[in-house]
């Protein structure tokens, strides 16, 4: 084997290892491998309080990711937060009386939107709106209610 060929093989192996590492970072370490790039349709959901929900947070149904939060804004008309959910097109059989709630993955985990299907015959379409929602659990409020309840019990 000539010297040049040896160099070529070594350099080739180095380049291959480098690109393999980049590929590994893309697929195994980051979310590039799990991002769903297919089409999606938009559905609005109004919440009293979205807590720590962010753009790109997952939308799940029975634990399976069916979409992502695309946009979040505040509606000054009815003083509520509006989350625009992008539901992947393959999940097009979601009843229009579906119940949306903001849940937390684990104690300190990120927040996501969970959908509970309703019993309606009509389906959610592009631009549709989820009527029944449940806000995020804000820890301070829960503790406040608990203390308030205890105080009332004591007063009786």
């Amino acid at each position, binding site marked *: 084997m000539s010297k*040049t060929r040896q*160099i*070529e093989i*070594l*350099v080739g*192996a*180095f*380049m291959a*290892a*480098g*690109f*393999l*590492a*980049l590929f*590994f*970072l*893309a697929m*195994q*370490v*980051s*979310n*590039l*491998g*799990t*991002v769903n790039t297919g089409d999606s349709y938009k559905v609005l959901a109004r919440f009293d309080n979205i807590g720590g929900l962010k753009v790109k947070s997952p939308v799940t149904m029975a634990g399976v990711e069916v979409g992502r939060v695309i946009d979040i804004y505040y509606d000054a008309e009815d003083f509520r937060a509006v989350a625009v959910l992008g539901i992947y097109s393959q999940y097009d059989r979601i009843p229009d009386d579906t119940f949306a709630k903001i849940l937390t993955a*684990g*104690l*300190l985990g*990120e927040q996501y939107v969970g959908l509970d299907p309703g019993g309606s015959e009509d389906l959610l379409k592009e631009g549709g709106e989820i009527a029944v929602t449940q806000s995020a659990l804000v820890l301070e409020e829960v503790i406040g209610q608990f203390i308030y309840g205890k105080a009332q019990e004591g007063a009786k």
Partner: protein
Amino acid sequence: MEWLAQLGRSGLSFSAGLGRAHLLMLAMLRGLPQLVRRPRLLMEQLLSVGVLTVLIIAVSGIFVGMVLGLQGFYILSRFGAEATLGVMVAASLVRELGPVVTALLFAGRAGSALSAEIGLMKATEQLSGLEMMAVNPEHRVLTPRLIAGIISMPLLAAIFSMLGVYGGWFVGVGLLGVDEGTYWAQMQSQIDWDEDVLNGVIKSLVFGVVCTWIAIFQGYDCIPTSEGVSRATTRTVVHSSLAVLGLDFVLTALMFN
């Protein structure tokens, strides 16, 4: 008075050096068309700049990852959040430690070698010899080294990060009993491709340009004596390290503000 003159002198020589460095960069970039016609020159430099640096990068990557796994587990387990160990290891490697530590090691291993080699070529008048033969030494000798450095750095940083993630996995999952699925799944859901990985790659590209540039300039600009070469090598490592650390702050502030 003497003090003021000294300040002025060092300021002037600094500006002059900066100017020479930029002219050298321009001269090297003009050698690019020639390099395309002679890829073998680039191949040889990729061997000495890239391939021979892989070993030290790989070893340090694994150990840095293992230390991150240990320290991360120690601190995260206090909050009962061992599940996020993978995120911590991967984020710190991909965003910061991968590009920065790779660049520092690169400056120490490849940069100093580049400076010494070019400096010795100058001291033994090989560069003048090339010029006598009507070969442009900047195009023939320096351009392939610059391009090899720029290509190698991101690849080396990627290898570093990948092995670091496996180092953290070995300690966290293998020795300390973090759940294997959680380690990878949390990592995948929290690490973003453009935001984290791609920004790390951009960082290491910038470091690749800067480190190689400094190394080549110091070697090419040195006083052609044995003492001058040794000083140039030292300056390469010091300047590259400072440049990398300073630039890292600026780039981080720009990217993740």
